[in-house]
């Protein structure tokens, strides 16, 4: 894990494994998916591929991103188990080099972060939280979702 993509989700800067990111795109109009879990904001298309858009803010239960017509959102495109996802974030900040391996975070984090964190990692900009992409896509647990 050499390069990290630094993104901002719900005001916090976190890192994604840059090797897993295929590209960074700008999302505009989405087609919503009725009855799907709330953190799946909808579908978008990248050339002939359909992207499932994950509202990261919602996946972490930090609020909701509004995908109104005309608004542009940045998103990181990843592939998990043969499916393509666009992780919608507040903004894509930078690409930095990791210094060392991720370490467990011993301080208390919010429930959403706790679920997706795979550790803390040192960078030239200081420590930053590394987020597990698959768990981010999985979103809040079944029970939470039913309650929401």
């Amino acid at each position: 894990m050499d390069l990290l993509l630094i993104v901002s989700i719900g005001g916090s800067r976190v890192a994604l494994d840059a090797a897993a990111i295929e590209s960074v795109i700008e999302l505009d109009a989405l087609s919503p998916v009725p009855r799907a879990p709330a953190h799946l904001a909808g579908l978008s298309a990248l050339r002939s591929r359909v992207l499932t858009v994950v509202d990261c803010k919602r996946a972490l239960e930090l609020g909701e991103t509004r995908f109104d017509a005309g608004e542009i959102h940045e998103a990181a495109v990843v592939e998990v188990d043969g499916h393509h996802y666009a992780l919608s974030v507040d903004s894509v900040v930078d690409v930095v080099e990791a210094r060392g391996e991720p370490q467990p975070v011993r301080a208390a984090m919010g429930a959403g972060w706790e679920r997706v964190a795979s550790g803390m990692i040192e960078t030239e900009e200081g420590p930053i939280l590394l987020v597990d992409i698959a768990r981010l896509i999985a979103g809040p647990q079944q029970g939470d979702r039913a309650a929401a």
Partner: protein
Amino acid sequence: MEDLIADFVAESREMLESLGGEIVAWEAEPHDRARLDSIFRFVHTVKGNCGFFDFPRLEALSHAAEDALADVRAGRRQPDAALVSAVLGIIDRIGEMIEIIDRGDPLPEGDDSALINALSADAIIEAVAAPAPETEDAARATTIGSSPTAAPRTIRLSVELLDRVMSGVSDMVLARNELARRLREAPEDVAVQGAFERLSGIIAEMRDSITRTRMQRIENLFVALPRMVRDLSNELGKQVMIDIDGGDVELDREMIEMIRDPLTHIIRNAIDHGIESPAERLKAGKREIGMLAVSARQSGNQILIDIADDGKGIDAARLVDKAIASGLVDKTTAEEMSHAAKLALIFEAGLSTARAVTSVSGRGVGMDVVRSNVERIGGLVEVDSKRGEGTRMTLRVPLTLTIIPALTVSIGEQSFAIPRSAIEEIVRANGSSVTLEKVGGAGIATIRGRRVPEVALADILGLDSDMADEDRTLIVLRPAGGDVYALAVDRIHDHEELVVKPAAPAVMATGLYAGTTLADDGSPILLFDTAGLAQVGGVKLEKQERAARVAEDKAAANDDLVELLLFRGLGGQRRVVRLGAVDRIEDVPVDRFTEAGGRLRVQLGEDILPATGLDSLVELEGRESVRLFRLSDGETEIGYAFDQVIDIKALDHEVIPAEGQGAITGVSLVGEEPAEMVDAHWLFARLAADSSQQPSGLVCALPADDAWMRNMLRPIVEAAGYAVVDAASEAAAGADLVIRSAEEADSAPTGAGTLLKLRKSPEGDDDSIYRYDRAGLLMALRSVAGGTN
């Protein structure tokens, strides 16, 4: 050099693959010269190539096998089980080495002398593989295919390249669609249009052929089976013969890969748990050799793969016991389960009837994985089994994953696609042949007399739509294996061929969607799973389908009570009738009711039904029309007049039987208040019997000199059960019914019977009937019969 080795590996692999079946067939019939030749050719080729590449171990092995086989070919030696096993051993070793070479590793040092010695004629036979088949029949049945397949003129292509071409073509189709849209907006230019049409045609053709390149004969999947079955049955000390059919069916390459594991698993199960040991089989009066039949065939846009064995079958009772023990179903549910539903438990996670865990199967993972794998690609697995006679598993998979003809529809702003294969018809909700009704909150659409459950797509999806129910379009759907229902959508757009891809797991988990696709303008569209829509929409599918899902929807199974229609009778009584007995509900003008001979009848279109729910026509006074249940017992119908429907309820209280016999079975609490239960059986026994019974011994007098009466009327009168006599004859005096034309009725004597006057014009007075008023005629014929009875 690298290239040459790669070619050698690829060639050898291909030959090995196609050889798999040949070897086993040769074993069953060692004298089959054609198969012997193809095996010989293989070792010969390997030997030749090895000399060139310097693989001494490979060379020694193939050389030894070639020598032994050459002896057989020359007649110097008879093939036997020992020789076959030895040759198989060598071919396996060659296969292993080829894999090593392919990885680029150096061939390890090793001793092959044991294998080579086993080839010699006087080698000690240890652990004979499979005993040679005893009968000629058996040997012939094992044969797969009639002749060794000749190599087709082909080239090898990497799958990745093929996929890239495919996705390129998909992009091209999208670009074409975009261009088409732009062209429609631009001022018309015939030359540009023409060129575009041509381009469009070429792209469509290209997409077709690129799709076909992805198709493969299912044989590729089947060739490995004989060998697998042979090895497995040897390992388990069983004798199994495999019969393969339908290898020429073509299937999407990806699909073949997707069904490889499920198919293998089912076959392993069949041999391990299905087919008994030879001793057990003899005891059960079966042939020692178990039969395993694998066949593929195309049915519509599905491929059906059957795997049938003649083993001991599935112990449904044991399955149920285990399911209860593991808490999967409760006792009461289990008691109500059909045989098919019990068998379907085999697909539940953690249920395996194997008494002992074996190395082959029975690890408790298995059939549930098989089902989920098959369902993931839009397929189905069905199981049927008779205890002691065998098991049949059927895999139903779609022909291709990729291109599905579909109808696009929309709700509000958003578009969706519905697979065309599930669509029966499309009707407008406000069309003359369609009525929409709400019965206890549930939608019922009556389309040309057929009642189907109706659900609004907007409600299922929870989307806003300001369109009124009547303005919507109804799509009548029949999901695979289910019953019809009508889906109300806001608008329908177009029939399209869509390139469908599976959606993300979380989207699929909603149960509503079968995949995603891109519309003409490049925006994503979801393709519906029509069975899933029905389920989420609360439509009850066919019994069979529901039962198959019993284990999954425990809650749904528990409320599977008798459904009752609660209504108010004409006299104001609260009554209930079983919903199942009600065919449909109609609004009938009161003048359609008639009373003759103490019986009430109602005329509905061309039909005349016995009417009940009222004691006499007096009860209808003051009304213009009255509502009517058409009750049906499957053959005959009864009209039951009532005031209004109150609700649909489930019967959850005891019925207190009524005293004596009558239209009411008893009283029960329905929705907290007592209601009388209509006894449909009693009604049919009393009313329907006389309508279907032909009146006998009735005589009708017709004027024989009237050609119209003789040719047109007489068949109807006879069909109604009358004997026809000439009005001029003496027998006419005793006729029960006398038919005359209205114009001359007065001039002739009438006799004792009822006089029925027919007039030639539609307009006329009430004491005659227009002669083409068929329903009126029938009514008259029956009322005379009813009066006489």
